C-alpha cells in the first residue's frame, strides 16, 4: 500500500568523484571531477517502489549508495523520517542502518564464500547485538523461510558455492530482512540471476513489500522490470533526473526525448509488435565534463537553440509527472 507519508526526501543531492588525472595537473591542482550525481531531488512515500532507471554510468547506483549513506555526498540533503541522515553521529547512524538496507547486484561477490548460509544471514543480528543463541537460530530459520529457502535446515549449513545465483540472491535478501528494515535500496537485484529465476525474485520482493510494509528504491536498467515492480519511476541521464512519474503512465507515454528513445529501443518479447526506434546520436558522453545546458542536447533529435545554453528544470507538467525539457515546458 502506497501511503501519503513521506519516508525519504532527497534534496539537491550531488556526488562528485575526483577523476584520475595526470601528474602535471595534479601538481597544478587541476583535479577534474566526475559528476556522478548532479542536483537530484525526489521523495519516496512509505509503501512505494520508486525505480531509478537509466543506462550504465547515469548515476543511479551512486544515488542509492549516497542516500543510505554508504558514500558521503558532495552536497545536498537526505531526510529519512524527517531526520537529516548526514547530520547523524555514529551511534544514531548505526540505528539508522537497522531501518535502511541495501540489496546488492552481484550475488556471487556479495556473499562471503567462507561463511555458511547460517552465518551470513545471522551476521547482521550479531553485528547489531540483537539476538544470540536459540533466538538467533530461530530468526535465521524464519529469515530463510521468508525468502522461500525451505526447509531452512537444508540451506543453513551449506556454503554459497553450493547454491544457484537465484538462491544466493535470496540469501542476500534474507540478510537484509532479518533486521526488519523499513526501507531497502535494491541495486539491480536480478540482473545477474538466471532468466528463469528472475521472475521468482521480483515476485518475492513484491510479496515481502506487502507483508512487511516496506519501501523500495529499485535500481535497474531494464525498463520492463521497472514497469513490473515500480509504482513510480525516475529516469536518469548523466547524473540528472530527466523525467519522473507513475511507472505505467511514464513508460506508456514518455515526454522527455531521452525516455522516448529508451522506450522505443527496449526489445519487446512479441514478434508481432514492430516499432520505429528513435536513435540518439553518438553515445553517452563522459560525466567529467558534462555538456552545457541540457545534458542530452548533443544527442537529442529535437534539439533547439536554447538547449545548449540553458539547463531545463524538472517541472511538473501533469499531476505527479515531472519532465526536464525545454520542449515540454
Amino acid at each position: 500500500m502506497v501511503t501519503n507519508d513521506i519516508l525519504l526526501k532527497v534534496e539537491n543531492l550531488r556526488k562528485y568523484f575526483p577523476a584520475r588525472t595526470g601528474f602535471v595537473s595534479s601538481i597544478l591542482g587541476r583535479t577534474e571531477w566526475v559528476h556522478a550525481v548532479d542536483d537530484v531531488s525526489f521523495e519516496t512515500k512509505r509503501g512505494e517502489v520508486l525505480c531509478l532507471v537509466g543506462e550504465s554510468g547515469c548515476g543511479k547506483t551512486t544515488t542509492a549508495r549516497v542516500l543510505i549513506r554508504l558514500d558521503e555526498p558532495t552536497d545536498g540533503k537526505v531526510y529519512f523520517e524527517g531526520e537529516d541522515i548526514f547530520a547523524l553521529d555514529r551511534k544514531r547512524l548505526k540505528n539508522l542502518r537497522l531501518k535502511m538496507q541495501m540489496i546488492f547486484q552481484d550475488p556471487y561477490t556479495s556473499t562471503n564464500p567462507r561463511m555458511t548460509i547460517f552465518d551470513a544471514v545471522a551476521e547482521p543480528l550479531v553485528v547489531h547485538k540483537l539476538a544470540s543463541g536459540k533466538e538467533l537460530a530461530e530468526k535465521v530459520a524464519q529469515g530463510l523461510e521468508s525468502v522461500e529457502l525451505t526447509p531452512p535446515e537444508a540451506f543453513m549449513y551449506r556454503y554459497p558455492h553450493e547454491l544457484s545465483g537465484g538462491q544466493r540472491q535470496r540469501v542476500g535478501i534474507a540478510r537484509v530482512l532479518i533486521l526488519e528494515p523499513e526501507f531497502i535500496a535494491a541495486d539491480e537485484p536480478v540482473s545477474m540471476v538466471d532468466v528463469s529465476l528472475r521472475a521468482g525474485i521480483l515476485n518475492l520482493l513484491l510479496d515481502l513489500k506487502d507483508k512487511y510494509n516496506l519501501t523500495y528504491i529499485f535500481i535497474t536498467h531494464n525498463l520492463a522490470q521497472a514497469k513490473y515492480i515500480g509504482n513510480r519511476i525516475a529516469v536518469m541521464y548523466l547524473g540528472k533526473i530527466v523525467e519522473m512519474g507513475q511507472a505505467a503512465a511514464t513508460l506508456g507515454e514518455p515526454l522527455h526525448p531521452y525516455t522516448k528513445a529508451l522506450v522505443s529501443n527496449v526489445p519487446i518479447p512479441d514478434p508481432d509488435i514492430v516499432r520505429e526506434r528513435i536513435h540518439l546520436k553518438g553515445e553517452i558522453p563522459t560525466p567529467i565534463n558534462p555538456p552545457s545546458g541540457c545534458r542530452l542536447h548533443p544527442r537529442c533529435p529535437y534539439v533547439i537553440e536554447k538547449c545548449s545554453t540553458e539547463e531545463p528544470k524538472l517541472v511538473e507538467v501533469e499531476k505527479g509527472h515531472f519532465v526536464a525539457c525545454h520542449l515540454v515546458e
Partner: protein
Amino acid sequence: MLSVEGLVTRYSTMMGDVKAVEDITFHVKKGEMFGLAGESGCGKTTAILSIINLLPSNGRIVSGKISYHDHDLANISKAELRRDIWWKKISIVFQAAMNALNPVLSVEDQIAEAIILHEDLIKQAALEKVKKLFELVGIDPTRTGNYPHEFSGGMRQRAMIAMALACNPELIIMDEPTTALDVVVQGEVLDLVKKLQKELNLSVIIITHDLSVIAEICDTTGIMYAGKLVECADTRAIFKKPRHPYTQGLIGAFPSLSSSWRRLEGIPGSPPDLLNPPPGCKFHPRCPYAQERCREEEPISIEIEKDHTVACHFIDEIGKAVYGSQ
C-alpha cells in the same frame, strides 16, 4: 545450408564429463535469422563452438553430423577450415567486443590482417576494403586508424561486425551480440544486424539469453535447456503458441513493456548441473506437468507441425490444458 544432426559435445573435467550438448538437431537456411536461446550453461555457446570447431581443448564432439554445403564440419581438418570455411564462409562475432579486439593494434590493421590472409590482397587494397566495411556498419571511415580504446562500446561492437563481414561470409554467428550494450545502443546494433542481413542476404545465428532480442529480429527460434534443444520453430509460433513447458515457463517469466500488468510466473527450482543431469527429461524436476514417465524416459524431438519440433512426452495433453482443444 547448415544442418546439425544429433550433435553431442562433452567437456572432460576432473569431476567427470560435462554433458554440455546432448543430441541436438537443427537446420539453418540461406538468408535465415536463427535464434538460439536459453539460460547460462544450457549449452548454446558450446553448440556453436562445435559448429565452427573452436571448442576449448577439453571439449570434444562425441557424435553427430554438422553439414555445411558439402563439408562435414565435425570431421574436417583445421587446415581445411582455415582455407575454405573460417572468415570466407562462416564467421563469428564474440560476446565481449572489448576483449575480442587487440588493444595494441589499430582497428584497421586487425581487420586488414584477416583480409590479407584470406583474400590475397595487398595491404593498400585491404585498407580500402576496411573503409568500405566501416561505412557499411555505420562508423565514420576516417576513424579506421583508431585503437579499440578510442571506440565506445557500440562502435567496438560495430567494428566486430565489420570484421566478421571482411571476407564476405554467408553465415555469421553472433554470441550475445548486445548483452554488454546499453538499451539505445542495443537497439542500433539490432537494426544494423537486420539491415545487413537483408542487404547481403546473410544467414545469421544469434545466441542470447534475452528472448525479447530474439522476438525482435529472428525468423526461427530454438530453445535450449540443459544441453537439449527442447523446442524449435518459427519465432511467431514460439512466442504465440509455445508447446514445451520450459518455453512456456520462460516466456511467462519475461516482463514486457508493451503488455499490461500481470503477475509473472517464475520457473521453480534451478537449472541442473550438467555433470550429473537428471535422468529422463532434463526438465522434469522443474516441470509442473511431470509424471513418472518423464523421470525415466528421455523424450525425443518430434515434429508436431511443419518445422516445429518439441521434445516432450505430453505435448498433446499440455497443449489441451494450455490452449483448449483447438
